[in-house]
């Protein structure tokens, strides 16, 4: 187990290292920090002197080492637009994005498990066919169209739901704000969360259904039937357990993907999260903010993937933890 842990951590560190190099070369090539600092009125000699002083003429590796050192201390530069440390700006928006991801995850789990299991147990029933047909259509609808459709129906035509923004937020632990605590916030959450969930929901229903159908064909389930166990016990205890194994791995990876799709959802609903901020930063060529976003999101991806692999290694006894022979 320890060897597996170390191997996974080593891989995570290598990936983070590559991300930091990419981020740094973006910072190195995109925009001119000097111009942002002093504007146009400074003479060429003074510029050169300032460049030397700031270390902008140092070799690439020296500059990278400085960048990495600062990054490890949590210093990713100062946003040109907000005039605040870039990391702080990003982290202030993190709760809003995580609200979306959390809400969408709840919806996905709440719907996909029962529907997928039902469709696997009764593959011929009318309801299963409707569910599967719905999921094929669902895969084919781009997420931003789902969002637009929901806005059009529930906000413009029916006027039931707010169409943009985050509404009132509640605070917990003194620093973390979440829209889950106020009724206004919850109303604002419903449409974006369903939109975000709509990408993954069809995939998960299909995945759970096909995994469960495969499990139901296996020997140990036939044995359980032969033993005369109650159907409920067979389905929900024996079969479901093994169905969920692959679902965990896919699910973990998809959490990272959801962070990517929050950019789209946040754009449609003008949700004040990290993705919306990132697109604004791109339009303003706010390099430190772009770099900070890359590193934060890269870290989220790497951390979720590592944790998922470790959990998988723990729950699935057939994963070869020791290098494999």
């Amino acid at each position, binding site marked *: 187990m320890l060897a597996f842990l170390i191997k996974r951590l080593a*891989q995570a560190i290598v*990936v983070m290292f590559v991300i930091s190099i990419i981020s740094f070369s*973006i910072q190195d*090539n*995109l*925009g001119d920090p000097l111009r942002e600092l002093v504007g146009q009125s400074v003479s060429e000699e003074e510029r050169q002197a300032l460049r030397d002083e700031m270390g902008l003429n140092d070799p690439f590796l020296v500059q990278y080492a400085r960048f990495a050192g600062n990054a490890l201390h949590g210093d990713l530069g100062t946003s040109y637009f907000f005039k605040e440390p870039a990391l702080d700006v990003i982290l202030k928006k993190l709760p809003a994005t995580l609200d979306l991801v959390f809400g969408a995850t709840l919806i996905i789990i709440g719907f996909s498990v029962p529907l997928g299991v039902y469709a696997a147990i009764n593959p011929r029933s009318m309801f299963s066919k409707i569910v599967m047909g719905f999921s*094929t*259509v669902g*895969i*084919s*609808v*781009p*997420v*931003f*169209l789902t969002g*637009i*459709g929901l*806005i*059009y129906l529930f906000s*413009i035509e029916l006027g039931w739901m707010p*169409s943009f923004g985050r509404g009132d937020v509640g605070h917990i632990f003194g620093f973390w704000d979440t829209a889950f605590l106020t009724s206004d916030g919850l109303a604002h959450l419903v449409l974006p969360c369903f939109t975000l969930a709509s990408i993954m929901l069809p995939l998960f229903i299909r995945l759970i259904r096909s995994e469960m159908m495969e499990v139901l064909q296996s020997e140990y389930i036939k044995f359980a039937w032969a033993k005369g166990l109650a159907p409920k016990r067979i389905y929900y205890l024996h079969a479901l357990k093994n169905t969920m194994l*692959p679902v965990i*791995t*896919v699910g973990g*990876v998809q959490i*990272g*993907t959801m*962070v*990517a*799709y929050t*950019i*789209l959802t946040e*754009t*449609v609903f003008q949700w004040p999260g990290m993705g919306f901020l*990132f*697109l604004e930063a*791109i339009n303003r*060529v706010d*390099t430190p903010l*772009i770099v900070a976003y*890359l590193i934060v*999101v890269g870290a989220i*991806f790497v951390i979720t*993937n590592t944790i998922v692999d470790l959990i998988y290694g723990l729950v699935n006894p057939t994963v070869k933890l020791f290098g494999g022979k």
Partner: protein
Amino acid sequence: MNMTAIVEEQTVSNWQRFRQSHFWHSFCIDKVAQISFLVFVAYVIAALLAPLMAPFDPYDPGSIDIMNSELPPSWQEEGDATFWLGTDAQGRDLWSTILYGTRVSLMIGICAVMLQAFLGICIGLVAGYVGGKVDSLLMRLADVQLSFSTMMVAIIVLAVFQATFGTQLYQELAMVMLILVIGIAEWPQYARTVRASVLAEKEKEYVDAARVMGLRAPRIMFRHILPNTLSPILVISTVQVANAIISEAALSFLGLGMPVSQPSLGSLISSGFEYIFSGSWWITVIPGLVLIVLVLVMNLLGDWLRDVLNPKLYKG
């Protein structure tokens, strides 16, 4: 002359073989597959013949009159019979713009998937055939690449390019950039599938025979093994084209894709979204439906191919 006779006979019998195949038979009994195929063919024809079918040229600023902007479809009260699907915010005929948009979307989707397939097949063949260290390195790379979602990678790469090049130059390069980014980001899908089939094929006797005959590795890989891995490639290709079209639409919606002057379906939807609150629903809804139907029929065809060819796809 003898040769041509033989070749002709060969093609005839190939056609007959096709007519008698399981593939053709299951196509004949599957209504959904037939309809999807017909709709898809209609899309392809519309895309190919867009310059002939479209009553206006949306790329030509001279034919556009801003006074015609935001006209509803002709079946509505204020509609104009010249523009049967209405006009967009710039006064372009929506029907013509959609035809051209479909052309752009399909072209990007297909080119991107061709690039994916090329990269993925080469890497997958090498990884599976050579094996050992090369294999584990390439597959590790594929794992890492897959763990970052395509969408994320594409958004970041395109965003950074847009910030570096400036919007003007970027818009001219947008199509190439989209093809490159979507093409490069998804190669592991192909590589994994091809590698899995190569591993199975490699053990078979015809490969041994080819090796004993002294054929070189590239020839064995491309001429002998590759044809036997075609059915999984075909299955993922349909789904991948659908995914590429969705990705392109999403990127264009974010303003990182095709410019409004040369719109794909995604950028049309994006430009209409600003007007949906003022009641001009058709600029968003009609291209949206066109996009959904296109992706849906491709997914349905992919599902059908998967059921018929039943390849052992890479799972997980």
